[in-house]
């Protein structure tokens, strides 16, 4: 792997039991962000039409896809390998996602991401999340 990318990742994980290996000192990447609070799950019937894709994304996907999350860390590496800036590791910074793609990955999983059941993310919740993540393109 590209040494620069390794360095960024080592920085992102600094403090999670990984000792400083000397590569992340002065001039290196910033320390990992603090815990990112998720939005509350919108109240009401989870099977009914949903409108708040942003809150749903935060609550249903945020355990992995907010700053410093497992999904964000892996996507940061993937995006940087593709020549993109590290910020593109956050799904909310992406401009190339389509609603159908989001739905497919959530239901079928992808690499380290397990599939999510229709209890974990209902179809109506997923529709709102997919619309939110793809809004820049629609």
């Amino acid at each position, binding site marked *: 792997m590209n040494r620069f990318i390794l360095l960024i990742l080592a920085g992102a994980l600094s403090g999670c039991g990984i*000792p400083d290996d000397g590569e992340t000192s002065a001039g290196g990447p910033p320390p990992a962000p603090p815990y990112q609070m998720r939005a509350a799950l919108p109240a009401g019937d989870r099977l009914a039409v949903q409108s708040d894709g942003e809150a749903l994304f935060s609550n249903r996907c945020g355990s992995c896809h907010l700053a410093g999350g497992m999904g964000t860390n892996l996507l940061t590496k993937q995006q940087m390998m593709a020549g993109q800036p590290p910020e593109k590791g956050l799904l909310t910074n992406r401009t190339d996602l389509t609603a159908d793609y989001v739905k497919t990955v959530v239901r079928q999983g992808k690499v380290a991401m397990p599939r999510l059941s229709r*209890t*974990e993310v209902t179809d109506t919740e997923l529709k709102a999340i997919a619309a939110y993540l793809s809004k820049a393109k629609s």
Partner: protein
Amino acid sequence: MKLTLPPRVSPAQFDAALKAYASVVGEGWVLATDADRDAYSDVYAPGPETEWPAAAAISPNSTAEIQAIVRIANQYKTPLWPVSRGKNLGYGTAAPRMPGSIVLDLSRMMKVHELNTELGYCVIEPGVSYFDLYEHIQREKAPLWMSVPGNAWGSVLGNALDHGMGYTPYGQHARNLCGLEVVLPSGEVMRTGLGAMDNNPGWHVFPLSFGPDWTQMFTQSNMGVVTRAGLWLQPAPESSLQLTFDIPNEEDIGWVVDTITPLKTAGVIEQNVFIPSWLGKIVLKGQRKDFWDKDGAIPEWRVQELLKEHKLGYWQVQIRFYGDETLNKARAEIVKKAFKQHLDAAPMEELWRQGDPINQYDATMGVPSAVALQMGDWVGGRGGHMGFSPVVPATSKHILGQLKRSRKIIADHDVDFYASFTIGGRYATNINMLMYDRDKPEQVANIRKMFDALIKGTAEAGYGEYRTHIGWMDKVSETYNFNDGIQQRLNQTVKDALDPNGILAPGKSGIWPSAYRGAAGKAGAA
């Protein structure tokens, strides 16, 4: 995944059962498409996911709904496999032990009934994740800390009920359970501990009852569906101090354990001390091919190179103290003095006080993270892992014996060695993380063969696992062999008495109800 029906249930009976379940939870919460069955399969399955197929899933939202579901299951003989959030990764995820079981997914039950800051406990439902509880505590500004496992994506109760471990003074999670509410296989509700008395305010603070207390009977078992529980939480400390020691050599684990255990049993060290081997540090830094690009175990010379390149010891020991700063410093001095007898290098010391930032990856400070799942990326492809998890007395004799034995079996199978010991007091759990690319059948076959060899070799030496993947529950259960396996015979006697139709989680922990005893050994791992 195509439908696998429960044993002896016809398609028409199955459809009728699903309709009955839908009348309880609503059609939208009965999940029975091929895609739904996929979603409840073992995403890390060592082999095809169809080996442990669910027939469907049902998601209730209350204890009353669960009671109704259990009664329907008895009527239609459709066995249920209860999961709290279905994130038992490495041990089967949400997949049932017996093919054709219906997953009873409790993840909609997300209520925090009580957060008691005065006495330090919460009362929660099974769907409450570590993230949910952490955020609830933060929003309430409650001076309480959780104990979290390495991967905290799952359920707080699910982890405790499956004997999960954390890395704080409250790290033996099953022992934090205090007062359960359980739906029995008959559909009746019972409450353990002082909950057996109506409105007793001590339900979640006194860990026993009058007469026998049944709380632990509902852990790693199939005797009931836990619908809520009290769980003790640690008072938030005013300060914390951590010492980090890099331990250079593999065999040093002997003196490390003999140093830590007496300090732990004497109360100088309060937390569960987690000691991972070097690969635990590398595995989050990239993919295996970045460090070694050939099949087979990373050779010892390359291991030594990697340790030098990354300035790592073979093991790393982090010991954290919680509470009064003066006391923490005094305790740290005792530990430093004890380590100094074996190790010249001084530890790194990190002091934390209330108000200071907390690293989001620090499980020893009760912060939940799913970042451990990044190891799925290590092997590349569709990475999976299983944990081989024996427990041994926490002395150098037992630890070094276990290390040598499992090291040899793992080396004989040409697999990377990635282990940790967690010292919980008088015992240590030894988690051997076995990683594989699910798209490489020969690699998966080798891991399965090795898993069998590890169980056998460990049992022959007199030790057993405290937790295992669904496919190996029978094999591990058989190693608990005192007096012709009387523990399992007792379990099955109790099971048959409580659950004559065998509708709750047949095969869990090797406990087969008589109705499905013929299914033991026929399904799952060969």
